Structures are given as structure tokens and as C-alpha cells.
């Protein structure tokens, strides 16, 4: 890192960058490993993390490395900044100084977003706090909160956003900062204006193509009919067609091993004699095989009448499916406890259960008491109609915040559904 000026203690003090670097590497490696099992969705996040903890070999240790490693990394990244400050790096090496500050900030951001991912109670409250902090920013707070959550409340969209920030955006920024710190690359020098222009024209063509042709997506595999004819993307048609001509296991040789050997030979071309001849033969053969097989694949699909019919039927099915309205997934996050009453409506779980409990048993958070709803119908002014009116305007029923109006959250019909469930609750 910095040129070693001294030996002894002073040299050891200057190792803060190395320590932070190793810890950062550990975060990258363990993070990538965790991503092999983790699923960022409210119905699977906690399940997959517990699977890592309880079932997968070394899972608990690797996750612990990631969890505590992030805390140690924050500490050492901060110590590194202080050390650089004491060494006056801000005058002697500006890039090093700025990169250290950026890295510290990014490491903190990574830690903040990572806390939400296991989706346990700790994660939920950390997300709540992040929401509150962002929402409290002057002027922009409301919008920052909405953009961070992906919606007006914490949901599965929030988890996806924290996941994308934590595993894609922030690590990419960290990597870019390190590349800049180590190589000082000026990216604009890599591309001349002609390159940029040509690339731009091709992008325009692709953009127009995609405007007319959405990427294919049909009904889920469970709904697919038995007659479904699968066809690969056009860059793989040669492979697909060649598999028809080659018996059994030989497909792996011609489709994987041979192309692999060809690529390996091409890599070592600079060291080979007769490079022009060998390379020309291989590339030429490749072009011929690809063109022949791709053409054969197109022709065989056109020629056979049944195939043609089935393919156009599939295209029509995909088209029809695309026109159907989106169907959201139904996910019940409520734990099913042994109660005699019918399970709570989904909207009760979403809006009410946080404070009044999943079974209407009430709760206590700090000094605030949230009243239980059991036997509430026995009290005056608590019929179904009353409860619906109360949900619209709690003040009219002498209720104080944090009880709030739900008029802009749920419809009257939904309020009635919740109310009808609540009046049946018994102690």
C-alpha cells in the first residue's frame, strides 16, 4: 500500500490497509457463497438462511464470517481512515485518501442493507429503522423512503431492493473504487469516439428490435401442455440441431468437449507454428457447422407440418397468456397457531397484527400498550359497523395515535372483512 517508511512498530501500524483488504476479500467470497443458497423473497428468505445455518456444511461458519466480518471490516476501514489522516495522506496521495473514505462509506452502506436480508425479526426492525432514518431526511425524505422501500410500506419489493443494493450495486462500487485506487484507470481513454458512435448505432438497432419483440415468456412449467416443443435461443440452434444427429452420450463430446478444445487451441494460437492455418481451419469449420446446423434447424421446423402448427400454437398461447392480467402470488406469512377461531384475514395480518397481535391478543412495545381485541364486541360501540367507522376515523371513537385511519389503505369492503373477523374473537 503506502511505501514502507520504517520498520518495527511503525511498519505494523501501516498495515491497516492490508487488514481491511483481506477482510473485504472475505466479505466478497463469503457473500458470493451465501448467494448460492439465499433467495431474496419474503416467503423464502428466512427459510434459505436457516437452511444455510442448520443444514449446509460449514454454512454457519461462513455466514458468521460474513456477519461479524462486516463489523470488523467497518472498524478497520475506520481505523485505516484515521491512520491515513495521521500520515497526511490527504496531501501526499489524494487518490488513496478519497478511495479510503469512499470505501468506508460503502462498507457501512453494505452493512446497513445486509441486515435486512435474513428477514428475521432483527432484519425487520433494522429495515424499519432504515426506513425511518431515510424518511426523516429534510425535503427529500418522503421520496427517498419510497424509493428505498420500493413502495409505500415494507414488502417483498423492499427485500429485493436491499438485496440488489447489497449484492450488486454496492459491491460493484467497492470494486470500481479499488480498481481506481490501484490502477487509476481512465475509462474514457479505452474507447475512441468512433467506437462509441458505432456502439451507439448498434444499441439503437437493438433497442428498436426489442421495442417490437418482447423477450419470450409463456405460462409456468406446471401449466405447460405435454405437446410443448422447446426451442433454444438462436445462438444455440446449431447445438440443438446437432444433438438430433448424434447418438446418445456422444452429444456431450461434440457439443461441449470439441468446442472446448477448439477454444483452448485458439487461446494458445500465439505460441503455435502455422497459427494462420490452424486458426483459419478451426474458425472456418466453426462458421460452416454453425451456418449449416442453424439453417437445418430452421428448415426442419418449417418442413414438418405438425411441428409448424404446434410452434405457431405455442406462439399464440404465449401471446394469449401475455394478455392476461398479472396474477400476484399468495403468500401467508402468518404463523398458524393453534386457535379455534378461523385464521386472520390477510389484511389483518398486514395492517393490524403488528400492534394488536396475530390473534388479536394485543401487545406492548416500550411504554405503549396496544389493547387486545378479544371480546371487543362485548364493549359498547363496537359492532361491525362501528369498527368499520372506527377504522376510517379513530378519533371519532376517542382513540389516540398510533391508531390511525386506514381509509387510504384499504377499502370499506376489506375493513368489513377484518371487522367481521375481529368481533368473533373470544378470550
Amino acid at each position: 500500500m503506502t511505501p514502507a517508511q520504517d520498520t518495527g512498530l511503525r511498519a505494523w501500524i501501516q498495515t491497516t490497509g492490508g487488514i481491511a483488504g483481506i477482510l473485504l476479500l472475505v466479505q466478497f467470497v463469503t457473500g458470493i457463497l451465501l448467494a448460492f443458497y439465499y433467495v431474496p423473497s419474503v416467503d423464502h428468505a428466512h427459510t434459505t438462511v436457516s437452511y444455510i445455518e442448520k443444514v449446509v456444511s460449514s454454512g454457519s461458519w461462513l455466514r458468521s464470517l460474513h456477519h461479524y466480518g462486516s463489523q470488523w471490516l467497518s472498524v478497520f476501514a475506520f481505523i485505516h481512515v484515521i491512520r491515513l489522516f495521521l500520515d497526511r495522506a490527504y496531501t501526499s496521495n489524494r487518490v488513496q485518501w478519497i478511495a479510503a473514505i469512499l470505501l468506508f462509506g460503502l462498507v457501512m452502506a453494505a452493512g446497513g442493507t445486509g441486515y435486512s436480508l435474513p428477514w428475521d425479526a432483527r432484519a425487520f426492525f433494522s429495515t424499519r429503522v432504515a426506513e425511518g432514518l431515510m424518511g426523516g431526511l429534510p425535503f427529500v425524505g418522503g421520496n427517498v423512503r419510497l424509493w428505498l422501500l420500493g413502495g409505500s410500506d415494507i414488502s417483498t419489493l423492499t427485500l429485493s431492493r436491499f438485496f440488489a443494493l447489497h449484492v450488486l450495486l454496492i459491491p460493484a462500487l467497492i470494486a470500481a473504487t479499488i480498481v481506481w485506487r490501484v490502477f487509476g484507470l481512465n475509462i474514457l481513454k479505452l474507447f475512441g469516439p468512433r467506437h462509441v458512435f458505432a456502439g451507439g448505432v448498434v444499441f439503437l438497432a437493438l433497442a428498436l428490435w426489442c421495442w417490437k419483440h418482447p423477450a419470450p415468456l409463456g405460462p409456468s412449467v406446471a401449466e405447460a401442455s405435454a405437446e410443448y416443443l422447446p426451442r433454444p435461443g438462436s445462438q444455440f440452434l446449431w447445438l440443438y440441431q446437432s444433438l438430433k444427429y448424434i447418438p446418445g452420450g456422444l452429444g456431450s463430446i461434440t457439443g461441449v468437449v470439441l468446442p472446448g478444445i477448439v477454444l483452448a487451441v485458439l487461446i494458445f494460437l500465439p505460441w503455435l507454428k502455422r497459427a494462420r492455418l490452424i486458426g483459419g481451419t478451426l474458425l472456418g469449420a466453426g462458421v460452416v457447422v454453425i451456418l449449416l446446423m442453424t439453417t437445418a434447424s430452421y428448415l426442419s421446423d418449417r418442413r414438418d407440418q405438425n411441428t409448424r402448427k404446434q410452434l405457431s400454437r405455442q406462439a399464440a398461447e404465449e401471446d394469449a397468456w401475455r394478455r392476461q392480467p398479472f396474477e400476484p402470488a399468495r403468500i401467508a406469512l402468518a404463523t398458524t397457531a393453534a386457535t379455534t377461531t378461523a385464521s386472520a384475514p390477510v389484511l389483518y395480518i398486514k395492517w393490524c397484527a403488528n400492534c394488536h397481535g396475530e390473534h388479536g391478543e394485543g401487545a406492548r412495545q416500550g411504554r405503549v400498550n396496544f389493547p387486545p381485541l378479544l371480546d371487543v364486541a362485548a364493549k359498547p360501540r363496537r359492532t361491525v359497523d362501528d369498527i368499520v367507522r372506527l377504522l376510517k376515523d379513530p378519533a371519532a371513537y376517542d382513540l389516540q395515535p398510533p391508531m390511525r385511519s386506514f381509509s387510504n389503505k384499504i377499502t370499506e369492503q376489506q375493513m368489513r372483512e377484518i371487522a367481521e373477523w375481529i368481533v368473533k374473537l373470544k378470550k
Partner: protein
Amino acid sequence: MDKPDKSRRSFLKILPLGVLAGVIASIGGAAFRFLRPRIFAATDAWLDVASVSELTGAQPLTRKIVAEHVAGWAITTEEHNVFVLPAKNNQVLSTICPHEGCEVVWEQARNRFSCPCHESYFSVDGARISGPSPRGLDPLPMRVQDGKLQVQYVSKEQATQA
């Protein structure tokens, strides 16, 4: 004077490499165990196909079985098609093509099974006719219990190992 200095320098060169190797080995070893694929236990449950009384005729019949698969953190319930050959004493055939594992279908009009992926064809009793498939369609373990035909589900992996 020269000698100890030299050995000290070579020690300083080796030490960091050793430490780095230690870090990589400890995490690398754990990573290997962490990523090691698991072999899903074969389900030996007997799954209902149909009542024996409704399995008649000379044509192969396509029937659905519902199998539960334990795969990592999820237990999935999946439907699988199987072919029943009433003409061959209700033998049950897997619909998984022995070539690359695509789902084979019965072509009534041409009196044959065909694979939609790479054009392997099988005769009415499941024997291979042509195409890249190395063999005919695999028979599944079957039994008759209380007038019901039952099978054990066999995955492509188990089928190709057999």
C-alpha cells in the same frame, strides 16, 4: 552478516504467502463443503396412477402421478406424466427421454412415442425406433394394491444410473 539477512528476507517472502494460503485454504475448504451438491433421497412411496378397471384398450394411456420431492430447503409437490400400457399387462413407462431428459409424448396419429427435443421415436411398447436415444423408454416399478395401479417415481438421474 550477509547470511542471516538473506534468510530473513526469504522468510519475509514466504510468510505472507503462507498466511494467504491459510486464509484461502480455510475458506476454500469450507466453500467446497458448502457448495457440495446433495443427492436427494429417492422417494420409495407408492403413488396412485389409476384404478385397474379403467385401464383398458390397445393404446398407451397417459396418466398423472403426484410426487413429493424433498429438494434442499423446499418440499415440492410435482405432477409427472407416466404411460400405462394396458396391452402389456399395465406396464408403466417413464415419460423421461433417456437421451437428454425431455418429456416424451404419445402420438396417436402415428402410433408412436416421440421426443419433442431431438426427434427420438419409440414404438407402442416403448422400444426405441430411431433418433439419438440410447434405449427405449424406462419401465417404472409398479404394483397393484386394492384394485389400484401404483408406481414408484424414478427421476432421470436414477433412471440413467440403473
